[in-house]
């Protein structure tokens, strides 16, 4: 009985929860680099003073990085240092970081931005060159090693860049810029390959 009721509810709810992510399914492949859209993830924008960092780290289950241009990752959850009191927390494991922060009494601001951002992965030996087609930062392994993260720009759009491994990047951009950013990266990938 309960099962039937649950089924009915799910069927009735399905049209409104049908999620259509921007850029869904788009990929570009060029020699040495692949640009593709990553699946949706949970994200929060976290602001907190120094005194709250320990409590928030404990609640989130990872140590919030305090060094510029770094990130920390644990169990499908990544925290990116964006500013002296600002982090972007991305959870790809289906857990909600917002709920974890809600249990913390220490002063902080956690805002859910899961649907604001789109993540694009750029992978392959030419990934660095593809991103550098529009990003002015030094992305050599010395200056931007695996795990490095930074807010920066790509062409005319602001992005958050995370190097997940030596030849793989995660590019986070705002949903409304995603078509521009994806097209820019695709062009960059073709140039890098050529």
């Amino acid at each position: 009985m309960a099962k039937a009721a649950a089924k009915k509810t799910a069927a009735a709810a399905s049209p409104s929860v049908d999620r259509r992510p921007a850029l869904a399914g788009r990929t570009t492949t060029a020699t040495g680099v692949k640009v593709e859209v990553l699946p949706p993830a949970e994200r929060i924008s976290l602001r907190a003073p120094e005194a709250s960092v320990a409590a928030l780290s404990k609640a989130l289950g990872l140590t919030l990085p305090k060094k510029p241009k770094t990130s920390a990752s644990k169990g499908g959850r990544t925290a990116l240092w964006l500013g002296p009191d600002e982090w972007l927390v991305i959870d790809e494991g289906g857990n909600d970081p917002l709920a974890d922060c809600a249990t913390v009494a220490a002063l902080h601001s956690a805002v859910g931005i899961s649907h604001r951002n789109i993540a694009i992965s750029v992978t392959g030996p030419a990934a660095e060159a593809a991103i550098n087609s529009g990003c002015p930062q030094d992305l050599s392994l010395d200056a931007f090693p695996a795990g490095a993260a930074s807010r920066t720009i790509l062409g005319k759009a602001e992005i958050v860049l995370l190097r997940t491994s030596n030849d793989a990047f995660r590019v986070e951009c705002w949903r409304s810029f995603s078509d521009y950013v994806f097209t820019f990266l695709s062009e960059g990938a073709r140039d890098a390959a050529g």
Partner: protein
Amino acid sequence: MLLIRCPYCEEERPELEFRNAGEAHIARSANMAGESDDDFEKFFFIRSNPKGIIYERWRHMHGCARFFNAVRDTVTDKFVMTYKAGEPKPAKLPGVAK
């Protein structure tokens, strides 16, 4: 492209990530309503506009998003140094002959 050192990111970053935010060290009156028109004009509109060393506010807009202060030479367009917001004017500037 100019490289500007952000005191919060602790490294030099490309100028495209930054925005200028006007002259630095302009103190806002604690009693703004009591300011005379002349004093308010000086505070609000009048800037030093020197030829040479200028103290400016900059913002690492597309980076850590923090405001900081920079010392720049308006003749050569070179940055002499940068320091965090709220810190006093540096007493000595590196590499500047007085």
